[in-house]
């Protein structure tokens, strides 16, 4: 019923072909899906958070951190020259094309004139005049070329100067940044460490800890937003379970913790080992 009587002899072959086509499709699907299975997706979340940092509370006035000098002031001067350079550079190719055209025309003229030479002597004078003209034009052209070369050279000089200025500016900025950072990093880390401790201390139920002022150590993994990626790990217990739990609760309650907005300084806070004395 599905196939006619006269089709029976080709039906087997056709069936094999049909199955072959589908196997081909399956192979294509398998291959293409295997390619897409590999890319890791876990790191994406970590990277994206850097861009959209929420403004954290301003640093405490007690110990103002060493501000890095703003490099923007130095950087703003150089940009204008490149625009000029571009504008003038854009003109140059047009002129070149025109020159080439003229040259080609001249060449054609010359060829035609040499033909004429053989034909008629009377036109010699005219020819000479024309050739002179051509030479004149060529001279003019070469003059133009020279001028252009000069212009190009000056442009290059300008560009190089601008580049050099820019480089110097960035180097300065980087240098000042570096010096500031090396000086400040330890200070900044200490400062934020004490800020974190202060914030946690405010949330600790001190009555649960003995008056002996025990020392606790926690391992905290932080995000740039100041939130923790997991539970704080207790490294060194105070010996009192109630006190440990109270401090842990306090750490959880004081999220988001104050962390530096600067990426370099923050790297020290990604895995923070925090020592903490509840009764300080």
């Amino acid at each position, binding site marked *: 019923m599905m196939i*006619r009587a006269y089709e029976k002899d*080709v039906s087997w072959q*056709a069936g094999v072909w049909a199955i072959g086509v*589908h196997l081909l499709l399956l192979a294509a699907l398998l291959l293409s899906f295997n390619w897409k*299975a590999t890319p890791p997706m876990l790191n994406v979340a970590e990277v994206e958070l850097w861009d959209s940092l929420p403004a954290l509370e301003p640093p405490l006035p007690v110990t103002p951190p060493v501000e890095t000098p703003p490099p923007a002031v130095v950087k703003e001067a150089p940009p204008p020259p490149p625009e000029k350079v571009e504008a003038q550079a854009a003109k140059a190719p047009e002129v070149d094309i025109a020159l080439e055209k003229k040259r080609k025309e001249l060449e054609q003229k010359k060829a035609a004139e040499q033909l004429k030479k053989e034909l008629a002597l009377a036109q010699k004078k005219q020819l000479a005049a024309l050739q002179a003209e051509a030479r004149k034009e060529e001279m003019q052209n070469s003059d133009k070329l020279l001028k252009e070369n000069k212009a190009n050279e000056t442009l290059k000089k300008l560009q190089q100067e601008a580049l050099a200025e820019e480089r110097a500016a960035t180097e300065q900025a980087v240098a000042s940044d570096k010096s500031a950072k090396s000086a400040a990093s330890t200070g900044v880390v200490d400062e934020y460490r004490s800020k974190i401790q202060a914030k946690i201390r405010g949330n600790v139920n001190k009555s649960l800890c003995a008056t002996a002022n025990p020392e606790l150590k926690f391992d905290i993994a932080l995000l740039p937003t100041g939130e923790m990626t997991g539970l704080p790990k207790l490294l060194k217990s105070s010996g009192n379970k109630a006190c440990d739990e109270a401090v842990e609760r306090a750490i959880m309650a004081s999220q988001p913790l104050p962390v530096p907005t600067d990426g370099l300084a923050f790297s020290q806070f990604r895995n923070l080992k925090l020592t903490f004395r509840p009764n300080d």
Partner: protein
Amino acid sequence: MTVSVANDMSIFSLVAGASLPVQLVLVVLILTSLFSWWYIFIKLATIKRAESSAEEFEAAFWAGGDLNKLFDSLGAGRRKTQGMASIFEAGFKEYVRHKQQSRMEVSDVMEGARRAMRAAYNRELDNLDAHLPFLASVGSVSPYIGLFGTVWGIMNAFRGLSNVAQATLSQVAPGIAEALVATAIGLFAAIPAVIAYNRFASSVDRLSVRYESFMEEFTNILQRKS
């Protein structure tokens, strides 16, 4: 933050993870695709055969031999005659039969032969047209079936999101990917079916025109003979 990543995105896990309606749609589509490709290859072979046999028969017919001999040689073959040969056979048989009853008018003889040829022609055309409606409906319907599966799958994928506080792409992506497989297979079934339908329809048209003109010419020859 809980990050659930579907690492295993192979086609098998996608299909296995799909909901039942989507799986049904996939099965239906794969079956229709298999059948349509099967018919495509069958029709490719049979139409090619019909064309070449028409060519052969026309060559033999116009070679100018004796029609009785041609008729005998056709009948001698084991197989049932097909295409143009069967039209000729039917017409010539009818003509000879009528001729043996000597009292018949020429116009009646011709009319009888024509009718016989017309009947054979219709049978041939029916054979040529076989499976074309199937290909046409696969071409027009299977994208919709695939789309139905996709919509169903995506609906499921989004319904799963409603219970989650923080929606991430990795929670919907597998569902949508698995749903899109249905559309892909639907298109894979539809595109060749449409192309094949158009091609075969035009080939059948050309063949039928050829058969018809042969019928006219053969009628003329018979009329001249009688």
